[in-house]
């Protein structure tokens, strides 16, 4: 009950935000939103399904570069280009998920890390397509002839996507597919014995993860307006995992909560910003040890204590 009221109040505040908040705050909240969409993908593959992926930045790169270049090179409007590239990423994610037939656990982590390194190298060396190490500019989002570049306008585009993503996570976790993902996380052999196609479903989890990674990456591209390979390395993948874990990997709101912490904390720290990596590392460590279900899992944990 309290949770529902809280969700309703937060949603109302987010709708009202662009009407009263200064535009840099609106920009930051929209940044939390696009980050949370990327992290939502990780929540599915790492949280729900219990696989490890250090490749989420690569899928974000596919979404970001794809959105930009489909507009620049093919003249495709972002409205079509962004969802289209997210679907392409989903196919890549599915094929990549088939890898989990051969490798599991630590080796899967290494394989996904290798993918991430390869994609970053491609971003640097496929200069004709990616602008190489220098990067490329992202054409602005347009409706007809009007360019949507102001923070409030992007906010109005991004936040509904975020709401749909949260709903999708909720709907997934309470559906047969979500339950099957949970089954895979807890016992693959029992899941198979029940008739769950283990490899197909793991690949499906990777496909969904890639879809949201790319979709979030595309939204992120619209906000940053400039892309370069340094934004999509292994460190970024690790950062996304840290956000997922700190927010809570089993809760539909986890990605949003985690992203809020990771976007707002550096702003709040001001001059101490150079200690950011240290703070995040300690936070991650703290949550892994004290509350593996992240911030979203804290209320249930406190209730259990009492």
């Amino acid at each position, binding site marked *: 009950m309290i949770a529902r009221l809280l969700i309703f109040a937060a949603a109302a505040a987010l709708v009202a935000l662009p009407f009263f908040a200064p535009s840099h705050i609106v920009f930051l909240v929209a940044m939390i939103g696009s980050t949370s969409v990327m992290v939502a993908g990780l929540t599915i593959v790492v949280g729900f399904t219990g696989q490890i992926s250090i490749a989420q930045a690569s899928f974000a790169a596919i979404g970001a570069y794809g959105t930009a270049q489909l507009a620049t090179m093919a003249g495709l409007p972002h409205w079509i280009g962004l969802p289209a590239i997210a679907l392409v990423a989903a196919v890549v994610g599915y094929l990549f998920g088939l890898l989990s037939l051969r490798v599991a656990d630590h080796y899967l982590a290494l394989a996904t890390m290798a993918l991430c390194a390869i994609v970053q190298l491609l971003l640097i060396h496929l200069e004709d397509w990616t602008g190489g190490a220098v990067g490329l500019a992202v054409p602005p989002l347009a409706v007809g002839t009007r360019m949507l570049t102001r923070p409030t306008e992007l906010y109005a585009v991004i936040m509904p996507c975020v709401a749909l993503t949260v709903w*999708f996570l909720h709907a*997934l976790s*309470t*559906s047969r597919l979500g339950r099957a993902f949970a*089954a895979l996380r*807890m*016992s693959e*052999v029992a899941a*198979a*014995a029940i008739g769950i196609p283990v490899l197909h479903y793991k690949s499906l989890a990777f496909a969904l993860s890639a879809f949201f990674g790319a979709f979030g990456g595309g939204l992120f591209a619209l906000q940053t307006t400039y892309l370069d390979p340094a934004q999509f390395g292994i460190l970024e993948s690790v950062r996304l995992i840290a956000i997922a874990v700190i927010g809570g990997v089993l809760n539909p709101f986890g990605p949003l909560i985690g992203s809020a912490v990771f976007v707002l904390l550096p702003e709040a720290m001001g001059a101490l910003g150079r200690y950011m990596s240290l703070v995040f590392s300690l936070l991650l460590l703290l949550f892994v040890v004290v509350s593996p279900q992240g911030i979203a899992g804290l209320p249930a944990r406190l209730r259990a204590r009492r």
Partner: protein
Amino acid sequence: MSAAALKIESLGIRFGGLLALDEVSIDIAPRSIHAVIGPNGAGKSTLVNLVTGIYAPTTGRVILDGEVLTGLPTHRIAARGVARTFQNTELFTELSARENVLIGLHRHLGYGLLASTLRLPSFYRAERDAARRADELLALVGLEAQGGTAAGDLALGQQRRLELARALAVGPRLLLLDEPAAGLRAAEAEGLSSVLLRLRDELGLTLLLIDHVMRVVMGVSERITVLNYGRKLAEGTPEEVRRNPDVIAAYLGGSPHGA
């Protein structure tokens, strides 16, 4: 003699230098309870893992109602009506008992990702039917009051019954039970026997029962196969097996492993 529901033909598997199962053949009649017993390491669990496709056999094959199962992946074998329980219980421990059974019903819930995301009427209908079916199955194994309890928090006897309910949710023709009576108290073992008989008589299932607990095996099985060191040592009715001198030797004297 009626056609065997399950035909195991000279099934064998080798793990490195160890011949875990050596050309074992067993015919199991439909709607019967067939037990496989034997000392530890005799190859009983290996047999279950071969029938369910978790291991690939070195020799032989498994045929269910005329269809060859060998070579199919585990989830396809399940789809053909083969369900099992595990010796050391493989429950989804963080989930509630009801959710465990719901996952067992996975293949029977027809809706797709779109229907569940948009919450179409077909989603609600299927979920409602599944919830009712899950409650029926929980009641069948006597866990109607434990539906909301996390599977990992149940007592061992309850966990074994929950695994049975989850296996039944798959909708099997053939049910493989890997030591369902292990660790149960006497009263619980009695309850298990009556449940097994109901599964055969009321649901018409064929059961392959693996166990050490003689009281259960002798009481419910039509036929018993005795394995020892991966080989078939004896086969027959409970009475025949009980009197077989080789069996007595393997259990009481000859085997260094004991029973």
